[in-house]
């Protein structure tokens, strides 16, 4: 069974700019993978190659075993672009209807109603796009990406225009999709969002993957902080399991122990460590 989405040694050059320098990444079936990185790291380029909007200079990208950009690949894919717009004179229902025809979906009114309900737009079915807020349009964009029940969903900054309630709707939706076996590649600047929903995270910097793993793996232990009558000191490399021994050793050495705290790096720490001084 091929991965839902896979890129191998992917390279992209825009003239003198080397946007991607041999990226390897795979999204397995039912997996939710987050892409992180500062502006210009190559995240959007990677996403655009995966959905066939941009041609790779070298390497390959595949969607369920089909070459990215091919008709077979596009038939498996749902995509929400970072910068997108629907014709302002279309209603929400008409936007979904148009995409149903383009994907060959036979879901009809029932599918449109279900999708609008999923993104909390069921009461805006007849509302025209130019009468919607940015957040509503973004949620409609997510519903559009889900037309035809794609096996792979690629979302480029899907919550950038959403308020906290809207983000929660999307987070719950993503978890629901994962439970139903849909694979998701999520490109987002919001670390907290990635940390909450993603099974794995890849951090890009200057066109290369500089860190990858589950949020738990990336949030690795950094040591134990021990507070005694001599002050506070950090024991690097120590873990939660080392705490009783460290405390016992301090007491045996005649120290009075006031507290011990296990230090773990957050995804944010790992991200900042990985991207160095680049500002996102």
């Amino acid at each position, binding site marked *: 069974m091929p991965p839902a989405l896979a890129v191998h040694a992917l390279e992209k050059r825009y003239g003198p700019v080397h946007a991607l320098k041999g990226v390897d990444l795979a999204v397995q079936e039912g997996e939710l993978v987050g892409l992180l990185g500062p502006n210009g790291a190559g995240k959007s380029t990677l996403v655009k190659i995966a959905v066939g909007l941009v041609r790779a200079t070298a390497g390959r990208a595949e969607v369920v075993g089909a070459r990215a950009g091919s008709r077979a690949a596009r*038939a498996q894919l749902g*995509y929400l672009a970072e910068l997108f717009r629907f014709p302002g004179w279309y209603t929400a229902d008409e936007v979904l209807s148009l*995409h149903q025809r383009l994907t060959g979906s036979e879901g009809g009114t029932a599918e449109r109603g279900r999708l609008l309900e999923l993104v909390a737009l069921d009461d805006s079915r007849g509302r025209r796009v130019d009468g919607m807020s940015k957040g509503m349009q973004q949620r409609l964009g997510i519903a559009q990406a889900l037309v035809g029940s794609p096996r792979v969903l690629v979302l480029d900054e899907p919550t950038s225009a959403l308020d906290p309630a809207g983000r929660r709707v999307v987070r719950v939706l993503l978890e629901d999709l994962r439970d139903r076996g849909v694979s998701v590649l999520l490109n987002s600047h919001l670390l907290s969002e990635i940390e909450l929903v993603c099974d794995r995270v890849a951090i890009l910097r200057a066109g290369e993957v500089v860190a990858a793993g589950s949020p738990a793996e990336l949030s690795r232990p950094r040591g134990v902080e021990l507070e005694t009558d001599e002050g506070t000191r950090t024991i690097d490399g120590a873990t939660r399991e080392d705490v009783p021994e460290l405390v016992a050793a301090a007491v045996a050495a005649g120290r009075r122990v006031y507290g011990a705290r296990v230090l773990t790096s957050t995804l944010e720490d790992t991200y900042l460590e990985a991207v160095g001084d680049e500002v996102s």
Partner: protein
Amino acid sequence: MVLTIMGYGFREAVRRKVFTVVVLLTAAFLVLFWLATHFVFSRLSTVTPPAGILVDKRTFAGAFLLGLAMFATLFLGVVLAVFLTLGVVSGDAERGLLQPLVVRPVGRSTLLLSRFLGAALVCIVYVLAVYGIALAIIDVAGSWTPPSPAEPGLELAGGVVIVIALSILGSVVLSATANGIAIFMLFGAGLVAGLLGSIGHALGSTTIEHASRIAAWALPFEALYQDGLRLISSSATGATGFLLQLGPFGGAFVHGWGVRVWAAAYLCAALALAVFLFRRRDL
């Protein structure tokens, strides 16, 4: 799928009031044209050619007025064609309208050719309708029709379809504004080359005629328009034909089936190039 995309383009044009503008301009033109035709034919008997020159006044006036109508129809048809297609790729991509459509299984070739077909259908109907109304006005006001009334209209429509293909090709590589400017300048260059050909013919300048021929082959919408003009005055002989040839609606030096076949091949090549470039273009 093709009909869906054609309908999408059509609705966009309706929304952008392209049709409203064109219908208003066309109505204004047709009213003025009817007035001009009415007065020209009602006072035709008072016009006296110079002594010794035998001119068929009715044929001269009818062919001249129909030539004028063909020029206006071509111009309005090109305006409609350009505004329907100038932003089909770059313009829509810049606005973020294109990306959600391109990632669908429909395919880039189908998407582009459907937009072409939609615009071509609208423009063909438009050009034939305006040309037909102009013919009817001349027939009613002056009891004159050209020897082969259908062919010039079809050639005009063919010319506009070539402009649509060029505009779609331009939209792949140029921004919407740059594309609109480029197509209108090409259109203007073609018309000027045609007029130069007439002047060259009157002056007996083979160099100017040669330049005009090259322009007609390079821009076959102009060649089709010129061939249409030639057809409406093809029955005029003697001084009448000579005077018509001297005028701005004089007719073609490149004409016949050769240029029609070339125009069809040119159209296919422009579309093939547009599809080839669009399929390779990063969005």
